[in-house]
């Protein structure tokens, strides 16, 4: 037996004690700090580790925004611990989080630029690599596109945005966030006139009822789910209602599990609104004071069409509980239960969603409807009464949405199509008037269609530069949207990444990138929290910062004479000065860290954030904090105050005194939010005789997105070593399948063989199967549908028709998740 009573020297090397013993003590100290933070006690001092330096960073994975402390010794990460000072996670991490340090150390890190010559990748120098990119752009500036991600840091996304929109007057820039949260954006914009949640994670601490709309929170946002379970463990009553198309780990903790047919969440939301109207339990006071009504139209626009309250009520008449049961499969009694719940004023209800509502052929509409039932019922405007979207990437909000790296946006919620917004942006960027292009670029699916279509057939994107994302695995309908690039000789794919991926397979030029704490960074999480970190270790080999690459490309374009690389005074767009006021040539890698480029870009970007009440504090405030939620407004005493609850007078400084609640970005310009009606509509593809099953796709706890990082962490890889298909036991028995059999999935877009996992972690209902998308060897997106929400342009990965047959290969028993 070991105890913790042995006295250890703070310097293990000096004392001769072995390092493991010392680390035991450090582990206990970390645990004690977290226990104290969670118990409301003062955390004890951490064990001194003189040879290990600890610093803060947000986790590299999902959009929750947990903070970790990273231990670095001799230039390497040697430890990860949850940060007890972080409000988001209070010291906790999920299984991915506490292995996050290991993602840097896969043995196949990309370390040298490589150019494809005669079909083979050859190592080249950085000067040549940057020159190749710049000359491709110079040859056809409007046929160049950038595809980044919600993993771009704020500075990286901002620099790419500036290069494209301010420099090249080219709006063909998109983040992969189009694939994961675009419908949430259009939902917020069409309801409130401004993007991102009004509430925050504090709602999880105060709600009485948590409704999960197609959100497997226990696996996808486990630390947030822990906050709820922790409340239950303390004896608080929190009712969890899991609305889902398949039983998951989340369902195990739910008080009510309501299984609905794909796409019928539209009917369920309308059914709730119907009951609120029929029983007169909607909040008349809230509606009269704060709401206006709109309906979707056949054209499916962001603006829709105004309607009266009476018209709204008439549209809902058809959505009786019995009708909703017929459409959704959810018993009418359960629909009534939901209606009654929203009709109560003595409970606080928080709705949460992520991909289930966003990756949806009517994603914008289901977002609108869920906001609508909260507004209609008055379950809005108090902590714990909130409709709140979650995100899947660490800076989907911070970089994709706030910096505005979507093809129709400018930073700070500005629109490229709005002349006034372009003028404001040109002033901040000091551009000649009229430089910015008013025409939105291609959205993600269009962009890849254009890149993968022969130029002579209208494929007018010739050079595509991807950073921090893996579209060769994550796009839907991969044969059409990615793999058909093969053989198109005039198309050129530049891939900047940290590991070889499905995307680098088709790359013509590979640029090796620094990752996470190998560079400075800023992320913005799901609850409007902006988080900063500093570089802690050096990248391997010749890997370099993504932001440096963008600036170096811009500089090469400047040298080649591209007029867009100058502002209206003739200065280079990316000019940085040191404290002495001297210009620093940061495009030379050796000089890149002579100034804090992140800081300089962030301070410039901040000017935009004030234009739509998304104010950010100075960079140095984020250095001190574990993130701050915008708007962050300076107080009379000079301090900076974050905002937890927007549009609510008690917390939001932009709400007029006495207003109580004020939707100050109202699209109707009367401080009202819009309650939408949108009908239930059939999905674009439904099972039939030829393809009789539903196919849904998603994630697992242990792997993050395409597995590029987590599959290189042995602990995570071994826990879930490969992909699989989940199927209902009765469906499997009917087909004569056993656990572990290889089965063939076939859709109208492709086919795939993979092992069957019956009664595993997830439990799809009869007539449907589920496949995670993390495994590059079993790419389920060869089969998925590229139909998009007509408003958000986000693809629907959650439902298409599939046939399931016995596989042609021999049986192999898969090993299921073990953690």
């Amino acid at each position, binding site marked *: 037996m070991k105890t913790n009573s042995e006295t250890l020297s703070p310097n293990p090397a000096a004392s001769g004690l072995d390092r493991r013993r010392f680390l035991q003590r450090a582990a206990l100290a970390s645990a004690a700090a977290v226990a104290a933070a969670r118990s409301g006690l003062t955390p004890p001092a951490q064990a001194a580790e003189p040879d290990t330096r600890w610093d803060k960073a947000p986790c590299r994975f999902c959009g929750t925004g947990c903070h970790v402390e990273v231990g670095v010794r001799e230039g390497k990460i040697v430890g990860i611990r949850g940060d007890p000072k972080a409000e988001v996670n209070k010291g906790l991490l999920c299984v991915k989080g506490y292995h996050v340090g290991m993602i840097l150390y896969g043995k*196949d890190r990309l370390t040298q630029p490589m150019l494809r010559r005669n079909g083979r990748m050859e190592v080249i120098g950085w000067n040549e690599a940057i020159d190749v990119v710049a000359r491709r752009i110079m040859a056809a500036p409007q046929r160049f596109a950038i595809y980044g991600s919600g993993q771009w840091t704020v500075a990286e996304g901002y620099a790419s945005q500036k290069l494209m929109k301010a420099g090249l007057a080219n709006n063909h820039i998109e983040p992969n966030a189009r694939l994961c949260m675009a419908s949430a954006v259009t939902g917020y914009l069409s309801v409130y006139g401004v993007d991102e949640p009004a509430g925050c994670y504090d709602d999880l601490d105060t709600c009485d009822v948590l409704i999960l709309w197609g959100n497997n929170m226990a696996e996808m946002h486990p630390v947030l789910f822990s906050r709820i379970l922790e409340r239950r463990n303390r004896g608080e009553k929190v009712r969890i209602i899991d609305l889902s198309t398949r039983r998951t780990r989340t369902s195990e903790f739910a008080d009510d599990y309501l299984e609905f047919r794909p796409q019928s969440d539209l009917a369920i939301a309308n059914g709730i609104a119907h009951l609120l109207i029929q029983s007169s339990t909607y909040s008349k006071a809230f509606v009269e004071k704060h709401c206006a009504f709109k309906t979707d139209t056949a054209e499916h626009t962001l603006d829709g069409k105004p309607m009266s309250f009476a018209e709204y009520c008439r549209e809902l008449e058809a959505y009786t509980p019995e009708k909703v049961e017929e459409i959704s499969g959810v018993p009418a009694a359960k629909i009534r239960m939901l209606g009654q719940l929203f009709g109560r004023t003595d409970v606080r209800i928080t709705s949460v969603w992520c991909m289930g509502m966003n990756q949806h052929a009517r994603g914008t509409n289901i977002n609108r409807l869920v906001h609508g039932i909260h507004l209609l019922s008055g379950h809005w405007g108090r902590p714990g009464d909130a409709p709140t979207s979650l995100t899947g990437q660490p800076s989907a909000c911070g970089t994709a949405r706030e910096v505005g790296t979507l093809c129709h946006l400018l930073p700070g919620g500005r629109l490229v199509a709005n002349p006034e917004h372009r003028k404001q942006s040109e002033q901040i960027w000091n551009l000649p008037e009229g430089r910015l292009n008013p025409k939105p670029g291609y959205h993600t699916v269009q962009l890849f269609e254009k890149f993968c279509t022969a130029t002579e057939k209208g494929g007018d994107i010739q050079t595509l530069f991807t950073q921090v994302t893996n579209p060769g695995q994550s796009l839907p309908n991969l044969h059409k949207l990615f793999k058909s690039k093969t053989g198109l000789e005039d198309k050129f794919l530049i891939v900047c990444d940290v590991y070889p991926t499905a995307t680098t397979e088709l790359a013509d030029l590979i640029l090796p990138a620094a990752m996470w704490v190998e560079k400075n960074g800023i992320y913005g999480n799901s609850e409007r929290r902006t988080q900063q970190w500093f570089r802690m270790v050096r990248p391997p080999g010749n890997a370099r910062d993504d932001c440096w690459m963008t600036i170096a490309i811009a500089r090469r374009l400047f040298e080649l004479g591209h007029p867009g690389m100058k502002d209206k005074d003739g200065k280079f767009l990316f000019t940085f000065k040191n404290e002495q006021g001297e210009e620093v040539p940061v495009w030379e890698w050796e000089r890149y860290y002579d100034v804090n480029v992140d800081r300089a870009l962030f301070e410039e970007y901040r000017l935009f954030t004030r234009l739509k009440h998304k104010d950010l504090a100075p960079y140095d405030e984020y250095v001190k904090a574990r993130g701050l939620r915008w708007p962050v407004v300076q107080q009379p005493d000079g301090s900076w105050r974050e905002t937890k609850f927007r549009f609510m007078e008690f917390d939001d400084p932009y709400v007029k005194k006495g207003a109580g609640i004020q939707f100050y970005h109202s699209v109707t310009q009367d401080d009202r939010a819009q309650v939408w009606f949108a009908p239930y509509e059939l999905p674009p593809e439904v099972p039939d005789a030829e393809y009789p099953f539903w196919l849904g796709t998603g994630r697992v706890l242990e792997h993050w997105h395409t597995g590029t990082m987590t599959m290189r962490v042995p602990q995570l890889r071994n826990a879930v070593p490969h992909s699989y298909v989940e199927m209902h036991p009765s469906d499997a028995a009917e087909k004569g399948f056993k656990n572990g059999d290889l089965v063939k999935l076939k859709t109208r877009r492709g086919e795939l063989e993979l092992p069957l996992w019956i009664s595993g972690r997830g439990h799809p209902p009869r007539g449907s199967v589920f496949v995670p998308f993390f495994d590059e060897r079993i790419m389920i997106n060869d089969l998925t549908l590229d139909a998009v929400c007509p408003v958000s342009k986000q693809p629907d990965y959650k439902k298409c028709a599939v046939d399931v047959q016995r596989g042609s290969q021999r049986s192999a028993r898969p090993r299921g998740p073990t953690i």
Partner: protein
Amino acid sequence: MNRSEAHESPRDPVVGGVLVRLTDNTVLRESALATLAEHPALTLGEAIGEWWTLAVEAENASEGRDLHGWLATVPGVEWVEVVSVHFVGMADEAASKPAVEVMA
């Protein structure tokens, strides 16, 4: 070899900081504490609030996973959460293999 198989499991020892919450049942609680204290791979720390702190030492990732799983099955243990991981020697194992070899 597949790309993501390029980094196979190193045999790195792992030291983790863990929180466990025990039952209110006094008999089960004492039994659980005794079980935890006797385990050679565990170092039992102090009780803070409702939590007991533990250091878990494993010879490799697989053993660490098994220990984590085992902890949750100990009678009297109601909740287990990992809060930190030290990767002893892990970083030293990492080598930057020239990517061009992978790509060839």
